[in-house]
């Protein structure tokens, strides 16, 4: 990783930290910024799978939703420590992801996408119809989590900073991963799975590992969500939400990490902006998606970069 890009990263981080100081940053805009960064981070963790490994997960909404439910369940029952919530979410999402990734990574291409989709639908259906967890209403009105006893993360500002910490750590982890040997093997799997196998790599183990990492990052993101919304509903894990995550990655640019963050933020802001003017914003989003696939398949960032470690990296 070049020195230039770490400087740029530090600058972006500083700007994000300073953002709430701007005079027009009301509570509303802080929450919008929270969403933008949270979904940006989730899109980035999905990019590890789609952009770097070439595995299209259509079930990331389940990881997100399970994280959110884990937190909401604990908060509702009076366990308000943020660390307990995060730990529980990691445990729940981790166990589920282990199961999914074991079965899904055994298959390639479209089968992987559909298996993740079907597993996610099982989770969705379970929460949708289990009254213990609120059925279709989900878990509403949970109290805020506490960083340490007595210090609650209960303001939009506190939540905003929590999500920045999450985003920064997740980005650093992903960046280290994709520049490491591990990341290079992932790209090799994407480019030619058989060749990677013949070179002696245990392809399925690599795929499972990257699945787990991506799922856990998404799950932690989900675990932060009830802090902002005070709820967890089954709609968070509808399969169309998984589709939206993929859209975010595509908008930003596959295999760039930074791109999907921008893509996620762009998607959230677009939805917010368009929906405040017209009620047919899904059509706008659909058209934007069609436009991007047809005319800029490398996404917003991809204009400059080739997919993954193409020529751009070779010359950088």
């Amino acid at each position, binding site marked *: 990783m070049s020195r230039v890009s770490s400087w740029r990263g530090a600058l972006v981080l500083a700007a994000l930290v300073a953002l709430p100081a701007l005079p027009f940053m009301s509570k509303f805009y802080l929450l919008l910024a929270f969403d933008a960064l949270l979904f940006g981070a989730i899109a980035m963790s999905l990019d590890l799978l789609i952009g770097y490994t070439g595995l*299209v997960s259509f079930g990331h909404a389940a990881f997100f939703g399970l994280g959110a439910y884990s937190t909401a369940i604990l908060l509702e029952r009076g366990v308000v420590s943020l660390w307990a919530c995060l730990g529980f979410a990691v445990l729940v999402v981790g166990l589920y992801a282990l199961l999914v990734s074991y079965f899904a990574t055994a298959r390639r291409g479209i*089968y992987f996408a559909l298996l993740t989709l*079907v597993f996610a639908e099982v989770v969705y259906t*379970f929460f949708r119809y289990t009254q213990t967890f609120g059925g279709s209403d989900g878990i509403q009105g949970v109290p805020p989590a506490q960083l340490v006893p007595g210090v609650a993360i209960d303001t939009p500002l506190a939540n905003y900073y929590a999500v920045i910490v999450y985003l920064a750590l997740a980005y650093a982890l992903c960046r280290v991963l994709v520049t490491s040997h591990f990341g290079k093997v992932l790209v090799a799997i994407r480019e030619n799975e058989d060749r990677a196998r013949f070179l002696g790599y245990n392809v399925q183990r690599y795929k499972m590992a990257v699945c787990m990492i991506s799922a856990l990052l998404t799950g932690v993101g989900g675990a932060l969500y009830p802090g902002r919304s005070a709820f967890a509903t089954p709609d968070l894990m509808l399969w169309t939400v998984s589709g939206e995550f993929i859209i975010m990655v595509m908008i930003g640019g596959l295999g760039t990490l930074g791109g999907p963050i921008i893509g996620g933020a762009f998607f959230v802001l677009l939805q917010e902006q368009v929906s405040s003017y017209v009620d047919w914003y899904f059509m706008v989003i659909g058209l934007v*998606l*069609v436009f991007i*696939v047809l005319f800029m398949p490398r996404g917003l960032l991809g204009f400059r970069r080739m997919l993954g470690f193409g020529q751009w990296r070779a010359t950088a």
Partner: protein
Amino acid sequence: MDYLVAILLPQLLHGLVFGAALGLLALGLTVIFGLLGVMNFAHGELYMLGAYAGIAVIGVTQSFWVALVVAPLLVGVVGAVTEVATLRPLYRREPLYGLILTFGLALVFREAVRQIWGGDMRRILPPITGSTPLLGMTYPNYRLFLLGASSVLLLAIWLFFTQTRAGIVVRAAVQDAEMLDGLGVDVRRVFTLTFAGSAALAALAGLLLAPVFTVYPQMGVEMILLAFIVVILGGMGSMGGSVVAAVVIGLTQSLFSLWMNPQRVAIAIFGIMIVVLVVRPRGFFGREGVLE
């Protein structure tokens, strides 16, 4: 015996009726998958468009039967235009782009319908009323018609693919489009017409099932998942497999709902699919190497 006639038999018939209609939907999906390598996420929306186009045509002509002919043709045209405008530029790209493109198209179609017709649930009245005594029970006539129509259509499609030159060309394109191109067939036209045909089939299924179910903009979202499961179970790209799997899913669903809360049935069906994929990764009739 009473249990058999009063509960089990109608439920079995329900399952068969639903399975046959589901087969129509899954068939279009599996042909497109074999042809373009694209899992068409907008297929459920074409199914939904069929029902709404039916409502529009019925509104003008007051006749379900006219709608049954005109609505699939209209949706077929929509399909052809969509294929030429959006899918054709993607032929040489990775299938992933087609998947995501059709997801975007699905959003556009769903929202367009919601804007035109509103988001409310609608009903289409069955054009055939009354019921027939059958094996000691009475069964609604429309459902019998539905079963008959779906079976005739499935048979017609089978004859098309095995007996006509056009059908054989489509199958050849599924096998090896490049070779077919080399033999002088205009493959792009085959793709467009097949997509239009698959759209028309989905629309037909949508309109046929509309009097049994309700019509609303999200109706495709739920059906498409079942259709995906059918296509996977039957074996990707296997047309016969899709029909068999559709009937199996239809029967399973209606039988399980006798003993389980209907919502749990969904989980049971997902469970069956996962088990099949683990035990027989290529589904019932899948061939080796289809897009793996």
